[in-house]
């Protein structure tokens, strides 16, 4: 049986592979090629070598956006994961009633799209800011930064919480009981027993929040649109603005080159993170 499956594997894989080739591999390499070109439309590209890449690293807005994105990623990864893990701990306790309701409620923000969330939070935050007499979001990069952190926490905590709950529920009861018999405090049980056991969940959650923070676009566009003066512009929005908000062929290739740099950056950073946390996982 297994042999038969193996023999026909290429046929089973074919539809997905075709879709993947058309939808991802071909445009990816086309994009890679275009990043070395000056062009207005994709079929009318002129090869110019590494010029675009040189300009990427001369472009201050790109470097500023990178700095802002890193700042955002650090704070949002920490806050999302810590809060999500804490919620998961609380909602896996046996003596708490209505945990399913709470899980559903916390998960729900994740079902709303980023653009919609961005606009809703823009209205909310602007109301709060005008009540406390601070400049509104479009003039206030600090508020824009924290607004985005709040928005992302609100949206992603529920999702990460579900993954953590699955991990915590998988910690064998026997281990926890054994620890209790050995006289471990609840803090020791958490750090020495539960945390190592849920390490696979931590790997995946940190990975998801890391890539989501770096790729963040919709929420950024809707909440602040990079205002004031590109101070809250993250990498993805910077690329978009380079490509679409500028007139002239010289900008298209630059935007494309930025996108390639960005893609490599996200892959490298997430691979490093994956190795770092994956090595801490323990096998039962």
């Amino acid at each position, binding site marked *: 049986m297994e042999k038969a499956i193996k023999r026909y594997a290429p046929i089973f894989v074919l539809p997905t592979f075709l879709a993947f080739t058309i939808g991802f591999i071909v445009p990816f390499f086309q994009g890679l090629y275009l990043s070395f070109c000056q062009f207005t*439309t*994709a*079929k009318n590209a002129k090869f110019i070598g590494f010029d675009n890449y040189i300009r990427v690293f001369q472009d201050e807005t790109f470097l500023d956006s990178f700095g802002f994105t890193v700042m955002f990623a650090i704070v949002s990864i920490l806050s999302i994961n810590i809060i999500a893990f804490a919620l998961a701990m609380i909602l896996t306790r046996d003596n708490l009633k209505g945990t399913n309701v709470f899980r559903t409620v916390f998960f729900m923000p994740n079902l709303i799209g980023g653009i919609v969330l961005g606009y809703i939070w823009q209205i909310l935050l602007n109301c709060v800011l005008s009540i406390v007499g601070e400049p*509104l*979001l479009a*003039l206030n990069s600090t508020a824009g930064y924290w607004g985005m952190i709040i928005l992302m926490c609100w949206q992603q905590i529920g999702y990460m919480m579900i993954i953590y709950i699955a991990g915590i529920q998988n910690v064998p009861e026997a281990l926890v009981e054994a620890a209790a018999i050995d006289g471990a405090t609840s803090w020791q049980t958490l750090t020495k027993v539960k945390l190592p056991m849920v390490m696979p969940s931590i790997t995946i959650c940190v990975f998801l929040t890391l890539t989501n923070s770096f790729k963040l676009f919709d929420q950024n566009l809707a909440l602040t649109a990079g*205002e004031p003066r590109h101070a809250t512009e993250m990498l993805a929005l910077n690329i978009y603005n380079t490509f679409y908000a500028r007139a*002239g062929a010289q900008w298209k290739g630059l935007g494309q080159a930025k996108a390639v740099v960005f893609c490599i950056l996200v*892959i490298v950073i*997430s691979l490093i993170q994956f190795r770092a946390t994956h090595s801490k996982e323990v096998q039962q």
Partner: protein
Amino acid sequence: MKKKLLSALLSVAMVATLLAGCGSSTGAAEEAPANDAAAKEEAAPAEKEEASAEGGSVYYLNFKPEQDEAWQNLAKAYTEATGVEVTVVTAASGEYETTLMSEMGKSSAPTLFQVNGPVGLQNWKDYCLDLTGTDIYNELTSDSFALSEDGMVYGIGYVIESYGIIANKTLLAEAGYDVADINSFEALKACAEDITARKDELGFGAFSSAGMDPSSDWRFKTHLANLPIYFEYQADGISATPAIKGSFLDNYRNIWDLYINNSTCDPAELSAKTGDDSRAEFLAGEAVFFQNGSWEYGSLTADGAFTDEDLVMLPIYIGAGDEANQGLCTGTENYWCVNSQAEEADIQATLAFMNWCVTSEEGTTAMANDMGFVIPFKKAVESPNLFVKQDTEYTAAGKKPVSWNFTTMPSEEWKNGVGSALTAYAADQTDANWDAVVAAFVDGWASEYALANGQ
């Protein structure tokens, strides 16, 4: 084992998101070619057949969503009359450049599209046919409506629009003023400040909110900014410049102060006010003045909100130049371009269609009545649009229209810079913040001009 399975599943999910991540990161640019490949296969054969049967077809990528229906009808009428296939596609509001960019990559690319002036032309110059000597060029009432560069005609302005300060005559009379009294910046300022002083008694404010949300900020960072640029160009006798001097920026500050401090809302809230907010305030009679253009005529008179008797458009006085003879700001930023890379038969069909639109009775009537356009062509029919008629009256009375020089602004980025600085100044009206506006205006112009023309 169970653990292993879980981690295996998680890894799969992870790889999937990683790949999805790469997809979206470079996706914006790459989606288009992928779509194109599919579209190419579908559209190409159909296109070919038509070309051989009819000897060319027209594909018009329309910029103005308000006129979509009218264009569709006109295209149908043209097809019935001549048998030539005309496809009209309208880009979503604010998405014209992106739509054009992906459509142009297809084998059935638009044969007729538009650019918004010399700066927009930079993107599409390679695709614009030289229209010198074509029938439609010869129909233009003035060469100034053609978009020319290096002795070539790349675009034909097909609609003239005017903007100024739209005033509610009824409210103005209630406040004790007559339209004829407002004939200079000083008079406008006196009137607006008097209305603000008596705001509680009258129950309305002077200006509708000068919203700096992206749906409305172009009224100030582009249209209002045109005035100091216009007067500087007039004073220096030029029509474009690599470096603006900002000679009239004090006037710009005066009019901006007037707008924001005699408004319906606190200037600090302007950053979140939208174009709809502003229009709604004007429609509800909460404000007397509303800076906008002839394109607003439809929404202001829809459902009988206002009649022609209630409305008037005043020139935007900023206390510069010859105010007694200043007219409305009139010009165009809508230029028709013909795709030079299209099939020869399609190009000919497109030129014939354009010519028909502006010379035939059916075409000119549709453009004037259904679309509400004033078109700068010899056989144009008079439009029922009140503001457009007023522009004609002003000109007939010897007032000189203010031309649209914002098409020479170096880039969108420049406009955004001025817009941001204006918003910051509105929230906190200090000299230091105004200096930031001046810096964005003057220094920003030079640096953006260098960026746009450098490479």
